[in-house]
């Protein structure tokens, strides 16, 4: 008698893999904090923080989905994340700052792409051609 269906088992394995990924990263971050403060973390502590983080993600995910739906959207955006960070002032400030940095970064990338495409259109010398090709390969490396 099968206690779990095939799909259920897949889902369980999937979430276990993700939990392991979280646990690894939490371990790395705790290691940094430990070195920084000259203190040790017990294994149970790392496991506990990792478990708490994973569970908190469930709350985050559901809230984000609700916020987006409230705004009649299916795509969760930065505003939804900022709303998620509302409970602590310093957290909200930090997230808002990061969000502004991202927006600035996106703007700069757009500017760069515009310049590149206009340079490619007005190409007269072979030098400009080489430049356009090099910029393009740079872009694909970044992606």
């Amino acid at each position, binding site marked *: 008698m099968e206690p779990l269906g095939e799909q259920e088992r897949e889902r369980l394995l*999937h*979430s276990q893999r*993700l939990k392991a*990924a*979280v646990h690894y*990263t*939490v371990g790395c*971050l*705790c290691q940094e*904090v430990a070195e920084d*403060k*000259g*203190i*040790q*973390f*017990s294994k*149970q*502590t790392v496991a*506990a*923080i990792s478990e*708490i*983080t*994973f569970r*908190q*993600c*469930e709350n*985050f*995910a*559901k809230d*984000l*989905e609700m916020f*987006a*739906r409230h705004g009649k959207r*299916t*795509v*969760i*955006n*930065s505003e*939804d*994340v*900022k709303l*998620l*960070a509302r*409970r*602590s002032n310093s*957290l909200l400030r*930090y*997230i808002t700052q*990061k*969000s502004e940095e*991202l*927006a600035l970064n*996106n703007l700069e990338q757009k500017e760069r792409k515009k310049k590149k495409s206009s340079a490619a259109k007005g190409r007269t010398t072979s030098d400009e051609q080489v430049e356009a090709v090099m910029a393009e390969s740079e872009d694909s490396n970044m992606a």
Partner: protein
Amino acid sequence: QEGAGGGGRCRETVNKILHLHFKDDKTRVSSDALLLMAEMLNVFVREAAARSTRQAQAEDLDKVDIEHVEKVLPQLLLDF
């Protein structure tokens, strides 16, 4: 290269974790929102670690144990 963005965990992992708990199949996350969520989780873990450390140090110990996490957990969850 992983799109880690300032110490956040890999974007793809964050995306998969969030998708585990979405009720609607059509829900998506913008790439900016993903980066911000990675940052937020980063802060969450660091806060948990730092607050537990402070608790252990306040008790004059040099090892952080699970009871220190338990003591700081309520306020941590209220702040997030």
